């Protein structure tokens, strides 16, 4: 199959990282049948840098519930991220960082640093300027959510031409693009 080589290159490092995985877990992750997964593993164990004794990839897959790689012949780490893949990941992380109400921004910032240290050319291609929320508002909302209180809000609907006063039980906040929304 045309894509088998790519699959094989992804499969071996994945087996190493998830040593002891079952055949069904392999099939599930790669979205292939268990039969196909078995064939691929079968291909791996007859290849390697040398056809002489001990020169082949070594995988114990007698027990299909527990597949162990004992020698991956240097193909034991995933392939480096492409620039595009790295940018989507860093973009997503940069976005999360803008919402300290929803995530621990410091941990996210540290995570971005770790990835950039490993991949020095990688950069987030997006900049997010989060919509400003009056801190008085976010404080009241946070307290109401944690104490399970009701709050009264004046809300300007954009589609309906009215300003309504509502009493709501806030449940949680979530973000969509650059704004934070309140679900109640």
């Amino acid at each position: 199959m045309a894509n088998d080589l790519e699959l094989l290159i992804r499969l071996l490092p994945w087996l190493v990282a998830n040593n002891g995985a079952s055949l069904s877990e392999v099939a599930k992750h790669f979205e292939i049948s268990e039969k196909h997964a078995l064939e691929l593993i079968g291909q791996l164990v007859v290849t390697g840098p040398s056809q002489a004794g001990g020169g082949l990839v070594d995988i114990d897959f007698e027990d299909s519930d527990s597949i162990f790689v004992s020698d991956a012949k240097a193909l034991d780490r995933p392939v480096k991220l492409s620039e595009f893949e790295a940018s989507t990941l860093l973009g997503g992380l940069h976005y999360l960082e803008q919402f300290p109400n929803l995530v621990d921004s410091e941990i996210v910032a540290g995570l971005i640093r770790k990835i950039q240290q490993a991949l020095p050319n990688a950069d987030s291609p997006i900049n997010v300027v989060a919509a400003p929320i009056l801190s008085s508002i976010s404080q009241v909302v946070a307290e109401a959510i944690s104490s399970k209180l009701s709050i009264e809000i004046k809300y300007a609907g954009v589609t309906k031409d009215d300003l309504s006063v509502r009493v709501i039980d806030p449940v949680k906040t979530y973000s969509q693009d650059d704004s934070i929304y309140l679900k109640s």
Partner: protein
Amino acid sequence: MARARTERMLNLLFVLLNSRTPLTREQIRERVPGYGESNEAFERMFERDKAALRDLAIPVETKPVDLFHDDVLGYRIDRSDWLMPEITLTTQERAYLSLAASAWQNAQLSTAAKQAVSSVDAREQNSDISVPVSLAKGRRHITEILAAIANGKTVAFEYVGLNQSEVVKRTIDPWRALLHSGHWYLVGFDQEKGEVRTFRTDRIVGDLVETKHDILESMPSDFDLSAITESWEHSEKDATIASVLVRPGRAASLRVLATSCEIGDEWDMLTIPYHHESQLVGLIASACDVTRVKAPQSLHDSVSRVVTTTLSVHNYGK
């Protein structure tokens, strides 16, 4: 690809990956089974295999075998060029990684990001943080912009500017995608104008196309996007300020534009900055039964004109 060829290419891969020094063609031929009997066959198959590996973005190095024989070339794959370095993550970090990938509400970007997560840490994640986040839902062009930035390619598209009614073709070196005030913008170097420009993605007409050309002007390493966004906010300070009276609870479409609102009994007073009357006249006129323009006079007059014209056209009298 036939199974036999897959096997041969895998073997070639392992041979090149596990060799500390570049290997000559002869050495490769000895180590990799299936290259056939004749020299011709070998040359042909080897060239095709090398090309196929490079197509998969596998960095096959071609180097002189040693310093004394720089005319003899050898091949190898450097593990640190090709494979991910080890990155140790805490459980929390791993969870945030998954969250970042699932934030994208766009199939291509989400798939690429999830693939990236698996490459950074292939261990299957059991529990995910369930923080509902959503990025780029229903937005056009974001994938193309991000791909062009990653690939360093110039893009071409047709665009309708704020004060234009015609469509203009632009050729841009893309630098960044900016999300600000609910809108996505492409920030890049306009080759024709010779300077940095921003383009709102919902004013791009048709497709945004990545050209074959590498970008001419790279983003400077000290490029500061906040200079642009701050100038937008400053330009709000340079804007004309309208004072508009609105009946309490009405004209929400005007209220969202206001930078401040004074609540009153009969009337609320909105302060709305604007650059062109066209931004406000239509909105105020269509809510004319609940609005009064206090200042500036020019805006007041423009609104009156529109209302009067509309009324007379519909024959509703004065």
